[in-house]
Each structure stands twice: as structure tokens, then as C-alpha cells.
């Protein structure tokens, strides 16, 4: 007699009480009480059967729903339920076959066990990859939005300091630019272009904790994956903070099984590259004397020239430096509890003395299933980072130290670094005839030597959650997360100089800030399958709070400047100053989303979030954000079954709204008075108060409406995958601090909603992986994105000037019809070749002569002035791309990573100083040797003359350059050690590698590094991007490393 085997899935027994409870949360008006079962009878030969239960998950522990369980060579027993669980009855010696689309089929011998948990490995192509999206997860194949995924394997062994750098060149439409090459300096991430004149930083969610900068508190080695939610349907669930895109970071978790120990380490040497060829002393003296004769100044005599040194200042300040990284992780667990403990140490010295970055991280993650419906877990990341900084960029205008590199470029080669006594030379040689005209500026080596600016950051980032699964398909999770950041800065301004006195009196300045961000996020998800209908529902609430406290102290008058005396106590008490303030901010939200699919073919999703913020006027604190998306998996249609080369074909479309509430300050709705104005009545310091910020009760969040259409197509069993997306993002009610007439005084500019910006672009992501034979495997991933940015409206049409390139002179203009921060300059038409040309050309001012720069009379009024400025390009690349290629042969593997941008402009401000020739600064070799020297000699470089410098260095296209570049960011050659020898040592695998970062850069840009963003004197403003004041260059790094698993 044949026995009947039964199985069941997902039989829901919902009591009335339970139903009413989650009705509160889920608004499940039509709660599905239907049993979700489809009993399929089958037969087996008679044998004593045992009940076997278990759970099927993927490598990340995510349940696989609907995986098929069958007997080897026999029948299908059933499929797993929404929790990945199954319950069957089989003979105790049976062999089970577990299969699931996109996963490698697995055979498991029951061997008398009653509980079998199965982990399926995904096939190549990754469409079953789990993608963490808004408060939940989805399979890549079910996505309806535009989501880019970067996995840990993409970043393995890259010698980079921060998590944010990982994203560079790895995802289409995600532009990552470092401010400068200085260790620990800021990184700018722009997702789908620049949407606003304000803060364009994305929202980061690190293991569920929303944070604006937590991403840098974790080590790159702790990253499991980074998902970038680019379109509105993916990001809208994050509401008011999602307009610039959402970056979801998932860290590594422990997995059940044997304890795994991983060790990795690398060390490398960084060196300067792509240096500017500056004039040597002979060239400088020659150029000086030509200019002197042009200007009627005394020349440098050959006797004097012979006494001058020949210093290469760039080489004097940029020295090779070491970078080292080591990490260790131990992870493991059983079916119920998994843990991981990881530690990482990263140390990078800078190319310039006294600049460095060190970070130490410890991370633990614990997940435990206490019972079949109760789960708890915690993530905790402790980090310590120290950044020691020298002036990296800019001219010191905003208070940050002026760039060391800038002064290295300024300094004439005739000035030695040290004098005979070994002291830093301060003033260039003084000559009775030439006076102080033999050089200028500050000794950059002395400036770097004196710099002692240290920022210490201590942070705790993590969360703890409980998750309850009261009934099949329902998960209720409460997650308390937080990010505590203690940031201290200690800067000693040492008095130095032998002829002049810098930082006099000396001073010590310290600041401390305590930032506590915490969130309490409660979600309920309900997944159910009704025949061919699969529904996933989510509802939740979130409370976000930020408390920020800051203190500062300083003293001056240190008798002993030794570091061991650089404490406040050692300064003069009469000089002490201190300050402090506190700020709070809160965001309270409710949200819900629904995903629906029919027959695995038709996908739909919708989301809504309502945010309330303390930053808006009490009368209008709430704003809602909605989105919707549709998807069609054409490959699942009958008619596609025979189209064999195509393994995946999916169309996606979405639309939604997103907000941006960053950077309007905590109280933009009201005018505020604060202190800080001092006047010495009667000889004593007396404080005053005045309006420092002007309020606007009508200010609201800016919002963007984003449309996205996408296509995913895969060929040859998904060995070749291509994703394409087109988006149109319209930012409206753009927040801006309305530029007021300067006669308004310094009361601050009120925030207003005034302006629209449109971004549109095409994004392509391509991957190809193929195992050619037993020895050879190749893989290529590539991405490419275009962006087109345009301001479509501004308050009263008022263009916004930005990007200071000289005192009171702004190099960019943000105006309707042009990209944000477009360069707005005169146009160099050439060089005046003869006097006739000077007379017939538009008037440029007194004293113009042949050899001077000729500017275009754009408005044709016969005079060259401000009215002849025009839009001449912008710093936003029109095309960004990245390409990673892997080849492995037997135990060898080779990785190449290219990254580049195209179509952007850089204003080479430093060239106005080193090619502008208006002050006795050093000059580039090309201007020293290729300058105009008579009719027809040059139409590019003017004659050498200091007096004509005022005309010749006018902000113009003369200094505007193509900023496109292609960098070989990384090349890495690895070798896996053979197994046999290692096994005896208990080592499962070892890979050693050599790696080179920034091996070459292809660019027409003549400055030190085309990869740069804001200079420090311009702050982090989007209207000042792409102005090069002489920045700290990025290094070329050669390193060796090892990865080992035990």
C-alpha cells in the first residue's frame, strides 16, 4: 500500500485578537485569512518515514520562498513557505534535492536528521541576489526601481581609506570625487547629478541606522554590500531626506557553521605623481630678466644668479609615504545564533609632512533566534579615527590653512629650503637693487613643519532589534539605532619664521563636539502568496532625533612650543577664550509600502511616507511623499520560452516624490539674535547681540519628482547582464539662501523656496562573467552614465554668483538655462601680436601692448569689462564611467579598475598665480619658455611682464581647462596558494597580491590632479566646484597584501 505523504506550507491561523493588533499597523483592511496551501499528493515506496523540518535560505540567511524540495530521482515533495520553512516526511535514508531558480541545486542526505537547514548558493548572474531596499529586502529580479549594487568582492584589496571611496566608478550615475588627495579628506558623492544648490549628499543607512556621515565610521573590510537607491520608487520610502538618493550599507554578519577566521593585510608606499613642471632656477632667471626688460626693472645679474639655489619645491614638500591596513574577523554560530567580531587598523601617512589618517575599528554583530517567532540582534561598531591635516587646498580665505602645495608652486627656485644654520628660509634673498622682488610667499616646507592640526573622532554606531514573527508571513520589528560621535580638534598654531613671524602670538585651539543621533524604527511586514499573487506589505513609524553640543577653548602665549607643552594649562590664562552651543532636531515619520507580483511576471509597487520636522514652522511641519512603480518580466512570458539567448528581460517604470530637508539650519522659520559682537567700551571687552539669521516662516522642504524607465536584459544564462535606466529628475521649490544686496548687512540670508533644477541622464550597467574552462575565468563589469543639469527657475530670476576666485570676484554663476555653478568668465581671444591690433580691438584699459592677452568683446560695446563675461562651461561631468576587468588563470588572478569622467571644466586658479605673472612667484616651465616674444611667437601665452599681469591674469578662459580624465585606479595581481600545504596548517585558503593604485592618469588637465572637488576656501558649496587653488594631489600607491581564511 502506498502511503500518502503530506506536507504543508503557510497555514495561517489567525485569531481575532492578533488580527486586530496588526490591523493597527498594517491597515490590512482585507486581512487574508485564506490558507495558502496547495496540497499535492504523491507516492513513495513503503518505508518507515520520519518527519523532517528545516529552513532554506540563501548565503545571507534570507529565507528562500518557494524553493522546491524533492527526492533524488523522484518526485517533488513541496515548496518552502514564506519563511523559507518546510516540513516533510521522508525515509531516513532519503536524499533530498533542493532547487530554486537562479540557485545551484543542492543534494542533501537526510541521514536520519529531523532538522535540516539548507543554504543555497546563487548561480552566476546574481538576479536572485538579495537587495536591501527601504526597510526590507527584495530579490534583484523583483525590483521595479533603479538600484545599484556594490558587493564586497568588488572592493577586495583596494587600498582605500574610506567606505565612500568604494563607490567610485562602481555604480552608474554615482559620481564620487575626493576633495583633495589628502589622507582623511572629504569625499563627495553625487547620485544622479546635482539636484540643488544646497546639500547634495545622499542619505546613508548603515545597518538600518540613518546617518549623514556614519559611512566613514566603518571599515571598508566590514562591508558586505552597498546598495544605492537611485530612483524615486526605491527611495521615496525615506521621504524628506531621500532627494539626493539613499545609500544602504550592509555590514558582514556571521553565518552558521564552523568558526571562520579571516585575516587580511596590506602595506604600500605612496608617491607623488603627475607633477607640474615648474621653471628651474636658470629658466626662472631667464624669464625674470625678459620680464624685467619688458617692464624696465633691474635684472638679476649673473653674479646674483650664481648665488641662487635651484630648489624643486614640489619635491621638497611631497615625499613618499606609507599606507598600512590590517584586519581580522572571526565569525560563526549555529542555526540559532550567529556572531562576527572584526577589527581593522588603517594607517595612511600623507605625502606632505604632518598629514596623516589613522583609523581603528572594532565591530561585533550578533543575531539570535530565541524561538521560532522571536529574534533579536545587535550591531555595534566602535571607531577611532585621527586625521592630522596640513593646508590642503585654497588660499586660507575661509580660515582653513592655505594649501602647502600652493605655496610650493609659488616659491621661486632660487630660494633654498634651509639656510646654513639648518633653519627654514623665510624671506627670499633680498638684493639691494631688486629689493624684495626676488620671490614671495611662504616657505611651504616651514608651513607644513609647523602644522599641528589633529582631529580625533570617536564613534559608536549600531543598533539593537527585536523581531517577532507571530504568524506566518508577518514580521514585526523594532529597531533602536544610534550614532554617537565625539569629535575633538586640537590645533597648535606655532610661531615660526626667522625674518617674519607667522602665528604670532602662538596659540592652542581646541574644540569638542558631541553629536548623538538616534532613531527608533518600528516596522511590520506581511508577505503572502495567494496562488499566483505575491503580496508584500510594509508599514512603519520612525523617530529620528539629533542632539548636538559643541565647546571650544583657546589660549595664547606659549613660552614652550614643544608638543609636550601644547596643553591649555601652559598658555596664558589671561588669553583664554571659550565657547559652547547646543542644537536639537527631530523628525517623526509614518510610512507604508506595498509590493505586488502576479505569476512572477507583473510587478507593481507603491509607497508613501509622511514626515514631520522640527525645522519647519509649527503651522506646517508635515509633508507627504509618494511613489509608484511597475515592472514586467517579459522573460517569464510563454512567447519568450524559446528565445534562448535571452535569459532575462524586464521592463521597469517608476515615478515618485522625494524631499531634501538638509542644510536649512534648525530654525529657518524665525529670525534669531545671537552674540559674538565685541567692542571695548572703557577698555573692557563688551559683548553685543544682533540678528544673525533671518527667518522665513513660509520655508518648506524642497522636493523633487523623479521619473525612471529601465530595462534589464540578460543573455546566455545571465552570463551577460545589461541594465539601462533613463531618468528625469525635477527639483522644485529648491531651497536657497536668497542672496540679498550687500547693503542689507550681515544679518544672514533667509532660506526661501525659489528655484527649479532638472537633471536627466542615461545609465548603463553591464556585467559579463564566463568560466572559459577549468583554468580560465574572465569577468567584466562596466558602468556608464550621462547627466544633464539645468537650472530652470530661480527666485526673481536672480542669478547666484559663487566660486570666489579672487577677492570679491566670483568665477561661477548659477542662472536659469545653465547648469548649477557654470563658469562665467571672459574669453581669451588670443594674444595681441602688434600695436595695430591693440588699437583696433575693443579697449581693455590703459597700458595694453603687443604680447598682452586679448579678450573677446562679447557684447560688442568696444570695451572689455564685466559685461563681456559669458557662460563658458561647467564643472559637472556629462559622462562618468568605470570599468572593472578580472581574469583568473589557475591560481592567478588579475584585476584592473579604470575610472573616468568626461565633459567637465576646471578653472585652474593656481595658474593665475604661476602663469599670471603679476607678483614674483615661480612660474611653470611652459610659460617660462613658450611666452610671446614677438609677432607670431605665441597666441596663447602672453609676454613676460609683471606690470601687464593685471590684464593678463583676468579671470578668463585662459585658465579654464578640460577636466576629463581616465585613471587606472587599481591594478592587482593575486595568487592563491595551493591547498595541500595549507591544510596541514589549518588554513583554508590564502591569497597574496600586489597592487598599484593610480598607476596612470590620462588627462589634458595641466594641474596636479583633475580629480578634485571643492577647495577649502570655498567651503562645501556646489557653486564653487572645480576651482583648483593648488590642491593636495592624490598619490600613486604600490602595495603588497595577503588575505587568509582559517
Amino acid at each position, binding site marked *: 500500500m502506498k502511503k500518502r505523504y503530506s506536507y504543508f506550507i503557510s497555514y495561517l491561523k489567525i485569531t481575532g485578537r492578533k488580527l486586530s493588533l496588526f490591523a493597527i499597523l498594517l491597515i490590512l483592511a482585507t486581512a487574508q485569512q485564506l490558507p495558502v496551501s496547495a496540497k499535492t499528493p504523491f507516492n513513495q515506496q513503503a518505508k518507515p518515514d520520519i518527519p523532517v523540518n528545516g529552513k532554506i535560505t540563501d548565503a545571507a540567511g534570507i529565507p528562500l520562498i518557494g524553493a522546491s524540495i524533492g527526492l533524488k530521482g523522484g518526485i517533488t515533495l513541496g515548496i518552502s513557505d514564506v519563511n523559507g520553512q518546510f516540513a516533510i516526511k521522508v525515509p531516513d535514508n532519503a536524499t533530498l534535492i533542493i532547487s530554486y531558480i537562479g540557485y545551484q541545486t543542492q543534494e542533501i542526505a537526510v541521514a536520519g536528521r529531523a532538522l535540516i537547514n539548507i543554504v543555497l548558493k546563487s548561480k552566476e548572474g546574481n538576479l536572485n541576489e538579495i537587495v536591501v531596499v527601504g526597510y526590507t529586502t527584495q530579490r534583484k529580479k523583483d525590483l521595479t526601481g533603479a538600484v545599484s549594487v556594490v558587493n564586497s568582492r568588488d572592493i577586495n584589496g583596494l587600498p582605500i581609506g574610506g567606505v565612500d571611496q568604494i563607490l567610485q566608478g562602481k555604480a552608474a550615475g554615482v559620481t564620487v570625487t575626493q576633495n583633495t588627495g589628502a589622507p582623511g579628506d572629504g569625499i563627495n558623492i553625487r547620485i544622479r547629478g546635482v539636484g540643488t544648490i544646497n546639500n547634495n549628499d545622499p542619505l546613508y543607512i548603515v545597518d538600518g541606522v540613518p546617518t549623514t556621515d556614519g559611512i566613514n565610521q566603518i571599515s571598508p573590510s566590514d562591508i558586505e554590500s552597498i546598495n544605492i537607491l537611485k530612483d524615486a520608487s526605491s527611495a521615496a520610502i525615506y521621504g524628506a531626506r531621500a532627494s539626493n538618493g539613499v545609500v544602504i550599507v550592509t555590514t558582514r554578519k556571521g553565518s552558521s557553521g564552523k568558526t571562520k577566521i579571516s585575516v587580511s593585510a596590506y602595506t604600500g608606499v605612496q608617491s607623488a605623481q603627475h607633477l607640474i613642471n615648474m621653471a628651474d632656477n636658470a629658466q626662472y632667471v631667464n624669464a625674470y630678466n625678459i620680464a624685467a626688460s619688458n617692464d624696465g626693472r633691474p635684472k638679476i645679474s649673473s653674479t646674483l644668479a650664481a648665488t641662487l639655489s635651484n630648489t624643486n619645491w614640489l619635491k621638497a614638500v611631497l615625499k613618499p609615504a606609507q599606507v598600512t591596513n590590517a584586519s581580522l574577523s572571526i565569525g560563526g554560530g549555529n542555526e540559532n545564533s550567529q556572531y562576527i567580531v572584526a577589527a581593522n587598523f588603517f594607517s595612511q601617512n600623507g605625502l606632505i609632512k604632518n598629514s596623516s589618517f589613522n583609523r581603528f575599528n572594532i565591530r561585533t554583530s550578533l543575531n539570535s533566534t530565541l524561538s521560532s517567532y522571536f529574534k533579536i540582534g545587535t550591531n555595534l561598531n566602535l571607531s577611532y579615527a585621527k586625521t592630522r591635516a596640513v593646508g590642503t587646498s585654497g588660499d586660507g580665505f575661509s580660515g582653513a590653512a592655505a594649501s602647502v602645495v600652493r605655496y610650493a608652486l609659488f616659491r621661486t627656485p632660487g630660494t633654498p629650503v634651509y639656510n646654513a644654520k639648518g633653519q627654514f628660509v623665510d624671506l627670499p634673498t633680498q638684493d639691494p637693487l631688486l629689493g624684495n622682488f626676488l620671490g614671495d610667499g611662504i616657505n611651504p616646507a616651514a608651513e607644513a613643519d609647523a602644522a599641528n592640526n589633529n582631529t580625533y573622532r570617536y564613534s559608536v554606531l549600531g543598533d539593537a532589534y527585536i523581531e517577532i514573527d507571530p504568524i506566518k508571513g508577518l514580521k*514585526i520589528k*523594532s529597531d533602536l539605532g544610534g550614532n554617537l560621535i565625539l569629535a575633538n580638534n586640537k590645533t597648535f598654531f606655532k610661531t615660526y619664521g626667522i625674518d617674519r613671524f607667522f602665528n604670532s602670538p602662538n596659540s592652542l585651539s581646541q574644540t569638542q563636539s558631541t553629536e548623538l543621533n538616534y532613531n527608533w524604527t518600528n516596522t511590520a511586514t506581511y508577505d503572502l502568496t495567494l496562488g499566483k499573487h505575491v503580496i508584500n506589505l510594509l508599514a512603519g513609524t520612525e*523617530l529620528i532625533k539629533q542632539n548636538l553640543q559643541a565647546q571650544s577653548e583657546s589660549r595664547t602665549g606659549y613660552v614652550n612650543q614643544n608638543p609636550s607643552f601644547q596643553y591649555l594649562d601652559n598658555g596664558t590664562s589671561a588669553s583664554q577664550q571659550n565657547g559652547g552651543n547646543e542644537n536639537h532636531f527631530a523628525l517623526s515619520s*509614518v510610512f507604508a509600502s506595498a509590493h505586488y507580483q502576479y505569476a512572477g511576471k507583473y510587478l507593481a509597487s507603491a509607497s508613501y511616507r509622511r514626515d514631520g520636522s522640527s525645522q519647519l514652522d509649527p503651522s506646517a511641519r508635515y509633508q507627504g511623499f509618494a511613489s509608484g512603480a511597475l515592472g514586467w518580466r517579459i522573460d517569464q512570458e510563454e512567447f519568450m520560452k524559446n528565445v534562448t539567448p535571452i535569459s532575462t528581460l524586464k521592463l521597469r517604470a517608476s515615478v515618485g516624490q522625494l524631499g531634501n530637508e538638509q542644510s536649512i539650519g534648525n530654525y529657518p522659520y524665525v529670525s*534669531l539674535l545671537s552674540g559674538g559682537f565685541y*567692542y571695548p*567700551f572703557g577698555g573692557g571687552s563688551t559683548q553685543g547681540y544682533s540678528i544673525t539669521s533671518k527667518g522665513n516662516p513660509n520655508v518648506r522642504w524642497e522636493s523633487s519628482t523623479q521619473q525612471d524607465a529601465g530595462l534589464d536584459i540578460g543573455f546566455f544564462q545571465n552570463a551577460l547582464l545589461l541594465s539601462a535606466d533613463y531618468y528625469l529628475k525635477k527639483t522644485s521649490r529648491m531651497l536657497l539662501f536668497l542672496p540679498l544686496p550687500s547693503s542689507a548687512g550681515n544679518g544672514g540670508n*533667509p532660506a526661501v523656496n525659489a528655484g527649479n533644477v532638472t537633471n536627466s541622464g542615461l545609465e548603463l550597467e553591464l556585467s559579463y562573467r564566463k568560466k572559459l574552462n577549468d583554468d580560465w575565468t574572465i569577468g567584466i563589469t562596466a558602468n556608464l552614465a550621462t547627466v544633464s543639469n539645468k537650472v530652470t527657475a530661480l527666485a526673481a530670476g536672480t542669478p547666484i554668483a559663487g566660486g570666489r576666485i579672487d*577677492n570679491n570676484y566670483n568665477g561661477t554663476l548659477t542662472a536659469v538655462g545653465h547648469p548649477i555653478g557654470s563658469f562665467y568668465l571672459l574669453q581669451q581671444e588670443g594674444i595681441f601680436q602688434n600695436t595695430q591690433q591693440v588699437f583696433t580691438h575693443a579697449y581693455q584699459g590703459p597700458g595694453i601692448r603687443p604680447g598682452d592677452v586679448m579678450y573677446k568683446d562679447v557684447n560688442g560695446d568696444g570695451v572689455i569689462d564685466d559685461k563681456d563675461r559669458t557662460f563658458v562651461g561647467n564643472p559637472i561631468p556629462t559622462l562618468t564611467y568605470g570599468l572593472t576587468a578580472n581574469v583568473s588563470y589557475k591560481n592567478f588572478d588579475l584585476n584592473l579598475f579604470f575610472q573616468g569622467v568626461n565633459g567637465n571644466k576646471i578653472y585652474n586658479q593656481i595658474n593665475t598665480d604661476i602663469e599670471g605673472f603679476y*607678483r614674483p612667484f615661480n612660474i611653470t616651465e611652459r610659460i617660462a619658455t613658450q611666452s610671446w616674444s614677438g609677432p607670431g611667437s605665441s597666441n596663447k601665452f602672453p609676454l613676460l611682464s609683471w606690470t601687464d599681469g593685471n590684464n593678463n591674469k583676468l579671470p578668463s578662459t585662459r585658465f579654464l581647462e578640460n577636466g576629463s580624465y581616465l585613471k587606472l585606479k587599481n591594478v592587482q595581481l593575486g595568487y592563491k596558494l595551493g591547498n595541500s600545504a595549507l591544510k596541514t596548517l589549518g588554513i583554508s585558503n590564502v591569497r597574496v597580491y600586489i597592487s598599484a593604485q593610480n598607476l596612470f592618469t590620462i588627462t589634458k588637465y595641466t594641474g596636479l590632479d583633475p580629480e578634485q572637488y571643492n577647495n577649502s576656501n570655498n567651503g562645501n558649496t556646489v557653486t564653487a566646484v572645480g576651482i583648483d587653488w593648488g590642491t593636495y594631489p592624490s598619490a600613486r600607491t604600490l602595495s603588497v597584501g595577503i588575505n587568509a581564511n582559517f
Partner: protein
Amino acid sequence: MLLLLVLPAILTTGCKKILDQPVLGQYESGNFFTNDANATLAINAAYAPLAFTDGASNAIWVLGDLASDDAIKGSSDGDQSDFLSVQNFTINPTNSAVEAVWKLYYDGVFKCNVVTDGLGGTAAGVSAGVKADVLGQAEFLRAYYYFNLTGAYGKIPLHLKVETPQELQSAALPQAQIYAQIEKDLTAAAAVLPMTRTGADVGRATKGAALALLAKTYLYEQKWALAASTAQAVEGLGIYSLLPIYSDNFRAATKNNVEAVFNIQHTSALVPYQGYSLNAWFSPRPLNGYGFYLPTQSLVSNFETASDGVTPDPRLDYTVGRAGHPYYDSAFDPAWSVTGYVSKKHSQPLSEVPISTKGDGNLNYQAIRFSDVLLIEAEALNEGGNSAGALVPLNRVRKRARESYLYDASLPGVGTIPPGLLPDITVTDQTLLRATIRRERRSELALEFHRFFDIIRYGSAYATSALSSKPNFNYATNQFFPIPESERQTNFKLGE
């Protein structure tokens, strides 16, 4: 589990309170002017823009003297080249000195308007006495800022309250309207401000300061009778006199003296820093100065000499450093200056301010000295037809100058006035006396940042002659500095 489900529901309904985050450490504008202390805090802030804690921000010295025939920029060639542009009249609207003075002095106006707005209504809680005094100070300061602004830029926007972005779009008004407002403010201020300030109030505006600035305003408006009578009213207060030794006006030890009608205050070694930065800007580079602001030969030649043709007006060596004369406690080095001269009125000996804290000087800036008031009176009387009457205040100024020889022990031959030095003027021909008064004014107030404005006030003929060494100067186009670009780009009602 029940708790877990219910809590979020409570939270969502309770979140309204969470969203009420109070403003910390700052006042909302609606609840600031509620007591005497706050009213005083607001007026204190309005004084801050007066100070010369940064020579580049308060660039009135660039406009007042570098544009004139009294001083050149100095320092190295490319350093602050915009200041050189002012000197040479190749001035763009983006010129940093032109921008700086505009922004700083209008910021002063704004801070005054915060006070007049705040106290303009009921301002319950502020006592009548404090309210009157604080309003008077605000009116005086606003007049002082506008007086400098219209002197430098001519037609300018007039803001008299804290304006909305729409209201800030405003036309530049003719100078007469600006002066009318200045007169109004000063008249109101003079009516309420006290005669003197003592103790911790020294430095605040007084009745005399308001009247003196009013006299100067009338002088600029060529309202001669009012200028003379108002200057006499200052004299009539009976509290001002000329110091026996001229140079005591420019010494830290003798600040806020009986000659000081309105002084801009600076004090060394305060925290935060409230010192006189011009001490560094104008000192020679080897003394850790920046080497700016070098007096011209033309200025030096303006000073009279005694009958011997050599012994100079003592004010010369009080005003400039030159070869053969010590520069306070340092020896003068000719390499310091391409003109051969350095300025002295804004610098201090190293014994007072050491090299290490050069920028933290302890001098006040003499915005209005009593000798200025006397010269206003002299000029107004002469221009008004009373040349004989003009001689009285004029000769008071000359007498004090020459009598430094009686009191200043540091002068060679102290005790005896060199024969023929600065004799009393007796000429009563209006034209001749006009020239004499102008020359006297140039010597007496040399390097006090007034010269360019005087030159322009004297008219085209005088200015063209005085600035003949500046080929780009054109009286019609250069009598006022251009309204800066930052204003042009944001104020569309400015007009041309």
C-alpha cells in the same frame, strides 16, 4: 509583544511634542527687546563694525588716503593689488576696498536698524531712560555710517529698518536725501545723548559727537551758517579743548582725552581680540608689520617750516617717520619705504606693542577730534563770508601745533618756539584764507583718512590739481567710488 505594537502608535500621536525643539542659545527676534540689558546688548553690536580689528575689512583708509595725494599703498607690488587700483583710479566694482567699506558700513547701518526696529514699538520692559539713550546711540551710529557711505559712494540706498528681501530692492537715493536723514538722526541723537561718558561707557556716542558730526554734515552740504553755528555749539558745551602736545592724540596712554570728540575704541590683549590691526598694517615689514600706507613727498611738503626754512611744523615728525629721525624706539631704515616716509599716527613703539603681537595695537582711531571741529568752524565762517571770524578757530589750531615746542620734552630745543613757526594767520581775503585753511586742515588731520573726501568736497579744480599725478583721475567719474558688484548683482532697483 503587545507593548511593541502599541508603543509606535502612541509615539506617532505624541510626535507633535517631539517636533517642538526650542531655540537654544539664541533669542527669537520677537522676544529680545524685553529689558534694559538686552537693549544695551543690541546697541553694543552696532559699534562693532566701527573698529579697525582688520585693516582689509575696514578699508576706509584706502578710500580716504590712498586715493588722495597723501599716501601710497606700499608693501610688495602684488600684495593687495586692489588697493593699488584705488590709488591709481583703475577701480572695478569688484575692488576689494570698495566692497569692504560698503559691506562693513552697511552692516553697521543694519545693526542700528535692529535697535531702532526693536525699540521703535512699545518695547515694554525697557526703561524710558535706557530706551532714549540706546535709540540716540543708534541714530548717531547710523548717521556716522551713512555719512561715510555717501561720502564714498554718493547716491546710495537708504535702509532705515530691518527690511524684507522685497524691500531691500531699493533705488540709490540722491546724496541730498541721505544727508537729510543724517541731519534728522543726528538732531534726534544730540537731543537725548549725554554730554559725557564715564567708566565702562567710555566710547559710547555723546551729545558732542552728534553735534560735531552734524556740523561736518552741514559743512559737506555747504550749509555754512549751520555748520559754523553747530561747530560753535560743540565748543559751547565747554568740555572739549586742544591737548597741549599734538601727538598725545595718537598715544595709547592718553586715549579718550579732552580733544577726542568721537573715538573708535581699541584695546590690546582682550579676548576676543579687539586691538588696532593698523599697527601691523602700517608698520615696516622688518618690525613684523605689513609695510602698507606710505606718506608721499607731497604731504611732507605741505607742512610749513620755521623762518630758517628747515625746522618743520612739529606735526610733521608726529605724523611721518623719516630718515634722521627715530621711529619711536627703533632706528629709521630708509629701506622701509620707497617714498622715504612711513606713517606714525596709527603705530606704536615696540615697548608698547611687541613684534609678536603687532596686530593687536592699543590705539583709538580719531574719528572726530576737537581740532577738526575748530577747522570746520573756520572753514564754514570763511565760506559764509566771516573771514575775520574764521581766524579765531584757525589760529587756535596753529597755536597748539607750534606750542608743542613748549611742552614736548622730546623735541629738540624744547621750551622755545622756533622763530616764524606757524605764526597766527591774519589774512582776511576769503580766497587766500580758503587756501590757508585747506592747507592747515591737510597738515592737522594728515593721515586720518579724511583727505580724499576733503579734496572732492573742495571741487573739481582743487581735486584735479591735487591729484594731477594720477593720470586716470577724472573728477566727474571718480569723485565717488563705484557701487560694488555685490550690490549691483542683487539689487535690481539700484539704477545706474
